[in-house]
């Protein structure tokens, strides 16, 4: 079985790796601004429905992924209420890589928000007040004081979300199925290879790639966050 590791990747395996990277990158980048906003709102604002929003954000973390995937299919499928509307303006999620990115983004969202929210809560609101007394309007206070100070948390949250998106399986396969070259991400490919006789070699190669990608993401985030934290601490 281990001799599978010595063989080069087949085109099908490559496409799974490339697709997974693309899906995770998009999922992370698109959800990041929303994640920062949600984390800030939950940490700083008192508004009616705050607990509801908090629950909604965390829902994908506690629901079985299959359930999340099915709910996505019901909502964003071509015959779903949102999916149907979007289809008319030319945006389709069902059984496309964009759908995989949507599923991965939603599944990773709670982790991202939690990491960023913790860093927002660590910022002393008195510093933001000081910026306001110096003439900075609200958005400027956020851009020049809050954002630089929560940057380590934002980076950590983004990388965590990226790693989670790379590993997303249940919601993705339920929502967009497992179509090679279209929606077959790394975990779906591993699963598919394990279903056919003689697929263990390919599966093992992909497993190895998964481990390497996850570890390098973690390492990169540690290095980056440490550098930013040092700057933010005012040394």
């Amino acid at each position, binding site marked *: 079985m281990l001799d599978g590791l010595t063989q080069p990747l087949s085109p099908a395996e490559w496409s799974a790796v490339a697709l997974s990277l693309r899906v995770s990158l998009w999922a992370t980048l698109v959800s990041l601004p929303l994640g920062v906003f949600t984390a800030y709102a939950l940490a700083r604002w008192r508004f009616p429905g705050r607990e509801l929003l908090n629950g909604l954000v965390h829902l994908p973390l506690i629901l079985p992924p299959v359930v999340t995937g099915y709910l996505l299919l019901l909502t964003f499928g071509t015959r779903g209420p949102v999916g149907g509307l979007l289809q008319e303006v030319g945006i389709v999620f069902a059984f496309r890589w964009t759908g995989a990115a949507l599923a991965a983004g939603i599944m990773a969202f709670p982790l991202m928000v939690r990491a960023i929210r913790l860093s927002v809560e660590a910022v002393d609101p008195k*510093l933001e007040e*000081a910026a306001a007394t110096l*003439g900075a309007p609200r958005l400027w206070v956020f851009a020049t004081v809050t954002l630089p100070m929560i940057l380590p948390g934002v980076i950590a949250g983004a990388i965590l979300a990226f790693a989670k998106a790379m590993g997303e399986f249940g919601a993705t396969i339920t929502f967009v199925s497992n179509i090679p070259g279209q929606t077959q991400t790394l975990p779906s490919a591993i699963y598919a290879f394990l279903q056919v006789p003689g697929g263990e070699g390919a599966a093992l190669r992909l497993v190895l790639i998964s481990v390497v990608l996850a570890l390098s993401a973690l390492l990169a985030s540690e290095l980056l966050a440490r550098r930013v934290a040092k700057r933010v601490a005012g040394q």
Partner: protein
Amino acid sequence: MTLSVALRHDFGSFALDVGFEAPPGLTVLFGRSGSGKTTLVNAVAGLLRPDTGRIAVDDWVLLDSAAGRFLPPHRRRLGYIFQEGRLFPHLTVQQNLRYGGFFAPKGAKRESEARVVEMLGIGPLLARRPGALSGGEKSRVAIGRALLAAPKLILADEPLAALDEARKAEILPYFERLRDEVETPILYVSHSAAEVARLATHVVVLQAGRVIRQGAAAEVLGDPEVTPLGAHAAGALLESRVVAHHADGLSELSVEGQRLLLPRVSAAPGQTLRVYVEAADVMLATRRPEHISALNLLEVEIRAIRRGDGPGALVQLSMGRTALLARVTRRSVEGLGLAPGQRVFAVLKAVSVAKGNVAGR
């Protein structure tokens, strides 16, 4: 420019109900902790929105609840010096200093950065970050940052409270220069009589959320009925002129034509100084004492006597227009038969006046 403030705010357990005017110069909001000083300053800054009130600098209205006007903090053109400095840790000292200026209107009258840096002596710190500064250095940068925001009003909330005595002595002169060289009105929160004595042109005394007295510094401090920190912490402010420096290390000053000897002061002959004399350091004698080590014998008249609940009494004395306070026991008042109108001698040891209690103007 004059700042006028009138506001009410109910916190449930505590209510703030104040009205005062701060003329040009440095106005100290004076009172013990919990009297509402910081709350009041935060309302002036717009960080707290009071239930009702009106706040204006001359005819520029910051808050008028009757007219539904509330300027948010960033539009109030403030220079707020916080007790803890609140420097931005991720920016260098120079970036901190320039932060406020970036948002000030283009045509605003502003201090030159070079002048402020020079005045505060922070040139060598510009490239550093706040994490690498000492407490005193942070305070000076915080003052500079507020000044360079081109403020129309400077607020300072116990800016020295977090510093030790040596650092306080280092920062106090900067506030004196601010008061004397910058035209912007300054509202300064303090619960230290020594700071009031050195800095205030005008004092507003707060107690339990209300203004109990306001007026010129010497007038308010010399009033035995106004002792927000308790009679034991009372003292009076004397305006004096330096006459000469003596060879034995003493300086001769003149107060209302009478001689006052103090340990050597730094001011040159002819200059005016304010000297804060704590009431507990003043003794009274009904006849001129002889063979006594104390160097200062001031001829004064008793104006009023305020007996405390305890063993003490606070005696207000006058030398011409200047008031002096003496804290003695009630037993001494009875024993010597002290009464208003009586002429007595106030005895003051030269060494009992601390260096920090003597200041310019």
